[in-house]
């Protein structure tokens, strides 16, 4: 059975300032949604709020996934439930190799934590290595990646590919891609776009958050939403991106009476 991430009348503030102001959205496993909005419309706030960042205060509203009240959960519990956030700016963890980190993360998310039956509570090294190698080949990521310290000294493109590799390994039900195309050159966008499209299937729902439709050339969404001033003001299909491309956000702002 496919699950729905249901967001109802969500309000999120940052340091007392309301950013998300009554947002409604639902994303089902297997669906691809694009949420587009200009800078300052609340895109990243939504992404971090959904994943449970402590600085992003949920004032009201609800987020339900798989019948569970997501807002009650710690970020790691949300991950275990099947949510994933690809960060716009991934954080470096010096001294921790991508492989070591991923083994612990994968073990945690698949419920092979400390109480699991496996030794050390981790998935067996051999099994993990095989899987990691497969996914890295699939995504065209170099072998040396696994040994490098997580995001430490990574280029913009490398960081985004590391995020997609994590997405592939953690096998979430719903993935939120926060500006995954930002700061990348054309080639890097293509590589990332192609990588993500390889992962798309009936078990993965994707919410692509972006202010620029480049990534959508590679991952064609079935649903497109426009985010302005903390709310989804328009929803439609692919044609909405065409309207945006042609006219920008101004006509939509005007239509909804929103100041820039």
């Amino acid at each position, binding site marked *: 059975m496919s699950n729905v991430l249901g967001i109802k009348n969500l309000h999120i503030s940052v340091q007392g300032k309301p950013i998300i102001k009554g947002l409604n959205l639902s994303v089902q496993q297997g669906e691809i949604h694009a949420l587009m909005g200009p800078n300052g419309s609340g895109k990243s706030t939504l992404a*971090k709020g959904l*994943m*449970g*960042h*402590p*600085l992003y205060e949920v004032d009201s509203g609800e987020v339900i996934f798989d019948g569970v009240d997501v807002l009650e959960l*710690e*970020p*790691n519990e*949300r*991950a*275990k439930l099947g949510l*994933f*956030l690809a*960060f716009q700016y*991934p*954080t470096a*963890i*010096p*001294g*921790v190799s991508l492989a070591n*980190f991923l083994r*612990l*993360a*994968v073990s*945690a*998310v698949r419920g092979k934590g400390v109480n699991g039956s496996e030794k050390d509570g981790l998935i067996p090294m051999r099994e993990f290595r095989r899987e990691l190698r497969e996914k890295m080949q699939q995504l065209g990521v170099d072998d040396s990646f696994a040994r490098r*310290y*997580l995001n430490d000294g990574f280029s913009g493109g490398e960081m985004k590919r590391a995020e997609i590799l*994590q997405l592939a390994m*953690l096998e979430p039900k719903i993935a939120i891609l926060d500006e995954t195309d930002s700061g990348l050159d054309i080639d890097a966008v293509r590589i990332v776009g192609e990588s993500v499209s390889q992962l798309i299937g009936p078990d993965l729902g994707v919410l692509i958050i972006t202010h620029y439709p480049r990534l959508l050339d590679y991952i064609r969404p079935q649903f497109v939403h426009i985010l302005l001033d903390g709310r989804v003001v328009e929803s439609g299909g692919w044609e909405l991106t065409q309207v945006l491309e042609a006219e920008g956000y101004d006509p939509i702002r005007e239509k909804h009476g929103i100041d820039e």
Partner: protein
Amino acid sequence: METSEKNAMEELGVSKEYQYGFHDDIKPTFKSRKGLDEGVINQMCDIKGEPDWMRQYRLEAYKIFKQKPMTKWGGDLSQLDFDDIYYYVKASDRSERSWDDVPDDIKKTFDRLGIPEAERKFLAGVGAQYDSEVVYHNIVEELDKIGVVFLDTDTAVKEYPDLVKKYFGTIIPSADNQFAALNSAVWSGGSFVYVPPGVKVEYPLQAYFRINSENMGQFERTLIIADEGSQVHYVEGCTAPTFSSESLHSAVVEIVCMKGSRVRYTTIQNWANNVYNLVTKRAFAYEDAQMEWVDGNLGSKLTMKYPSVYMMEPGARGDILSIAFASKGQHQDAGAKVYHCAPHTTSQITSKSISKDGGRSSYRGWVDVAKGAKGCKSHVVCDALILDKHSRSDTYPVIEIGENDTNIEHEARVSKIGEEQLFYLMSRGLSEEEASTMIVNGFIEPLVKELPMEYAVEMNRLIQLQMEGSVG
């Protein structure tokens, strides 16, 4: 033995001696009275059967010790009572302690660290008989073939008096500091290593194996002489908490790196929380020689330890990598000292400290470049990681430069575990504790990767233990 058990046995008419026959193996033992005077030192020399020169050396050092005022810098030593310490306990005496006497939390830690049964007993100061004795003898035989001497220092005084006499106390004289004087007066155990010219010892020499000597004593004295072009890696200590009923550990380690030699000295120490760990470690590195200290300090009440390298001739190099983990009620005052006494010498100091649960860690460093020592390079990096707002980290760097033509860099960073780092790792399914542990392990990775494999694995597990319950 449990009283009830004893009573039960008596009721059954079973002789205690019979049931616990191994107690009969106890060798004649000796423990000096508490406190220190010339009588105690003389008694010690008598029992050890030491040559007169060493007795004189000890008595001379004792005189110096008496004249030295209590050390006022570094950590708080006001609770240290020199009169309340046993200065000499013969090794076999220690083995009298029974496994039942070892505190439960320490037993549990051994368990969690996955330390083999036999080693646990030794580490807890219980076992006198231990399989690795065989291992040690095999190693010594191998070393013998290539002319390497690896003995406890007491034995070396008797078997290699000329070598010991030539170097003992030349790197760290008795008058160097209060605790060097004390150690010189009452030292016991420690290792003596001599590596002949051109010999490269392929595997690390581990003090660990030498368990029937008094190596894990309170006042060990280690002397390593690496002759020209030789190479050796010495490893001491272990990650398991060292159970000690005595509250003062004061070692002296002297190292001579002759021309073109290379010595690495690795220490991992995790003393019980009642111990003052006051250690003097110093190496002289001659032409093109390279000395590396890798020093990990966990546990203890107060540690004051600053491994140093004196670069005596051109081309010498000193590398010091130190890490300190200060937890509740602990003060780690650790660091490094380098003295560029000759031109074209190079040093690198990397210090990493972690403070948690109100622990305090201090970096105390000294970089000295002598007048005329042209073309020297020194690079110092101090990183401190503070895990909560109750904990503390200080840096006390001193740089003394008597020569313009030098290149000295000093970098210091203090960081807290960032909310962004935690959130990132937690969003991938790690609990807050797992995430913090991972960040700390990453922080000390530069040290851990320098450790022999088995120590590295234990070190990571130990950090995990230290981090447990640290997150609300």
